[in-house]
């Protein structure tokens, strides 16, 4: 189970990740359905977004997310260490996706009214 201990910490926002917000969102979305190690993350993200995160970029984002308490490593005897979402990370992802959905909904509505639905 993801740790609930970090739930009392201040809420970090993904917007503060700057140019890492994209990879961070993809990683958090991938971890939303369970823990994954680096290679599994790469393949999963590629399958649902078409984006293949390069190893350096992936681990840079993982280190930042871990530093912010949004993800945490899972105990493993394997050399491939899996990561999982924390409670804070789940809330940050939900807030970020809600904000993105508002933008997407607004954009689609405006497109529909000006350009039609086709």
């Amino acid at each position, binding site marked *: 189970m993801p740790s609930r201990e970090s739930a009392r910490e201040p809420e970090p926002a993904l917007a503060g990740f700057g140019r890492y917000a994209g990879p961070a969102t993809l990683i958090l979305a991938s971890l939303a359905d369970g823990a994954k*190690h*680096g*290679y599994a993350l*790469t393949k999963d993200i590629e399958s649902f977004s078409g984006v293949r995160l*390069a*190893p*350096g*970029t*992936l*681990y*840079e984002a*993982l*280190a*930042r997310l*871990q*530093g*912010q308490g949004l993800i945490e490593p899972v105990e493993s005897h394997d*050399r*491939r*260490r899996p990561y999982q979402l924390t409670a804070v990370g789940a809330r940050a992802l939900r807030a970020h996706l809600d904000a993105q959905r508002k933008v997407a909904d607004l954009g689609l509505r405006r497109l529909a009214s000006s350009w039609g639905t086709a």
Partner: protein
Amino acid sequence: MTPAQRAARLLRWYPKAWRSRYGEEFAELLIAEISERPRSPIRTADVARGGIVARLAGAGLCGCALEPSAQARASLVSLGWCVAIFTGFGAAMWSQLTIGWQWSAPDNEATAVAMVVMSAAMLAFGVLAAAAAAPVLWSAGSRIARGRARGLLGPTALVVACALVMFAGGTHFGNGWPGTGGHPWAGQGLVPGGVAAFSWASTLWVSSYWAHPGALASFPAAELAWMASSPLAVAGLVGGTAALVRRAELSPRVLGFEARLGTAACAVMAVFLGGCCAWIVDGGPGPRNLFHAGAIDAAGVVVLAIAFLAARQAARMARAGTARAR
């Protein structure tokens, strides 16, 4: 070369601390990637970039992956090195001007204003350095007094030894300079002649003579030895202080104080840099060419600007680290 060997090679881009934390799992990912796509220049470039970023993060200059207090300490150490480089090159340029003023006042307003600004900044650097050193030395001293000297005696001895070397060498070679310390006119300039001479002698190694070995060969052997050894003493002084900052278990409050001093030092650096640029851009050579700005001075300003930008980033990261540590 096997994928494992190539992964191990790529891993060298990353610093040791990062490798000990992420090395195994990252190597596994690289092996899987290399097995799937043996040749990928983009992957190599990405790993190299990631390694450089990890090294900068380890130095407290970017990122937020480190533990907050460790990030603050790393940033403060980087800040200390930046300020040391800045003051080393800055003092070399400033002392030339102050020595010139021992002989004759500048006849150009820009040079005169620049020198006043730079002198005020140098005084501020001295005050800030004393304020920054006091809590570190107090913390280290009290730990040593309580018998918890593990890891502190070496850096403390290094700091004391290097400070003594700088003081003895700077005084000795400063007194040997006829235009300042020992000159009967000394004291008529903007700053006391002894201070100007000491500053000049302490930064004798910042010299364009290194590019002219023929001229350098005519220098007295003792002076050459001093030019070669004084930067090592400065490096030992800063390195020893950095080790004390890392090992003295400074409280978050002290780290916050040091970070605020770092921010103040950046402001002083900006002021000094402004004065320096005013002299180089608008200052004249002055009487007897005493205030002439040469290529070495222009190069010095570039070094100052780089050190200033790095220091500003380190100060920003130190503040962020101390805020997270609280």
